């Protein structure tokens, strides 16, 4: 329990250091979602596979780059915990990509339907 509380606080402190960027991203995401929500013919379900595909692609691209962003290399992956963490961080980037790609993809599907 303590470790979860600690991790939440670490995430909170990191977010405090990045708040202008996070705020800008949240506003942009809100605008995208609102636009897609109000747009007639947006196909959320049909847009999901493409958004997930974008997420997987971003995850696949991010994974080998993440060590370098942290002054490390893939050769420094010592055991499974390292790989699990690398994949978890990459999955985080992928999830953000899905969040942004989904409204865009759903609107695109709606346009294609017309």
């Amino acid at each position: 329990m303590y470790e979860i509380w600690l991790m939440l606080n670490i995430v909170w402190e990191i977010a405090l250091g990045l708040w202008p960027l996070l705020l800008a991203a949240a506003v942009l995401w809100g605008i995208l979602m609102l636009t897609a929500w109000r747009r007639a013919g947006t196909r959320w379900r049909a847009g999901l596979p493409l958004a997930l595909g974008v997420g997987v692609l971003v995850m696949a691209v991010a994974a080998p780059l993440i060590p370098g962003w942290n002054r490390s290399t893939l050769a420094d992956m010592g055991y499974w915990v390292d790989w699990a963490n690398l994949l978890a961080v990459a999955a985080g980037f992928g999830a953000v990509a899905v969040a942004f790609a989904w409204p865009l993809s759903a609107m695109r599907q709606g346009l294609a339907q017309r």
Partner: protein
Amino acid sequence: MNDNPASPRIDPARRRWLQALAAAPVVAGAASAPAPARAAIKTSAHIVIAGSGLGGIAVANRLAGLLDGAKITLVDRKEEHNYQPGYTLVATGVWPVEKVRDRNADFQPAGITWVKDMVAGFDPAANAVVTAGGQRIAYDFLVVATGVQLDFAQIEGMDVGAIGTHGLTSVYPSPQAAQATWAAMQAFTAKGGNAVMTLPATPLKCAGAPLKMSFMLRDRLLKAGTLGASKISFQSALGNVFGVKVVNDNVLERWQALGIDVEFSRKLAAIDIGARRATFVSPEGERQEMPYDFIHVVPPMRAPDAVKNSDLAWQAGPFAAGGWLEVDKSTLQHRRYPNVFGIGDINGTPRGKTAATVKKSAPLVAHNLAEVIAGRQANESFDGYTSCPLITREGSAMLIEFDYEGRLTPSLPMIEPLQDSFFAWLMKVRMLKPAYLAVLKGRV
């Protein structure tokens, strides 16, 4: 519940994790809530905290939440707050120096009285501290959080102001010294040469730092292509390089493979900075000079004079020579003055002069002090937890956690303490400062 005897059994560690994961949404909802769950204790007590490093401010923030009506006075002249665990990263070129510099005022709780002066003396019999400016401050309860004194004066010829010149380095004194150390390391690794790393015989804060500096110097030489023209020797004043045997043995094994020579029972006694010559002395008093191109000086450490010369210091035993604070190692309450507690590096306890020790002990000190204020006994016990993310090269580290007894105590069941690890490196460079800030603010 699983009542089926045929179904697989879940081991206790895994069960704890599953329970913790199940509770995660609840915890997430409370992420910004302050830690204390109990009603604040009403009191008009005056609590003086001597020192505003991590320990002093963390306890101040905790007490502000635990107590209602108390007067808290923080005594420390220092306006800048330094993230000292980051010094090794600055000194080896991983971080810019700005990442270890903050303002103390940004972390103190509201309503606190800040006396911008240093404590020059303690008068525990009269429940008072005296500042360097001559102010006498009476207290009902005292928290000693003064940290250590870097005793460079024990090294004849040493000049802290010369760090960064003539191949002289030391990661310990300040952010500026760490920055100057990196400049000197860059100059040295460009050509290579003879590097001497030192370790004194006294208790150290961040006892892993001398080892990290050695590992990183070797890595920097390798990357600069000058390792072949270089020699690194580690001169330990002790019979080991680290106090936990399994870690000590592991590091020595690694250094043998990496070509880092180690000599024991050799204390740095004197240094001729201009001539780049260091003098080491053996326990028998034999002196030997060593020429160097690069030297990393780790100063002997002791309690500051204000503690050392007071009745708060240990009067006998292994911690008396350094003048360390005489606290009970479990409750961190003073053994002779029950209204006095200690936090952080000043404590005369078997191990643990690290930020990780403060992370685990600050909540305990605040709790035990609040209990004593409420007229009860200090009832929480500290196991001596400490941690050292031991950098082995740029990009990799070992996440070593241990207790008073030197037992390895990984926080997470899957961590292999002696494994070179990207995860441990990521923790060191990305996550431990945010964790430190959360401790400082009294949340974890």
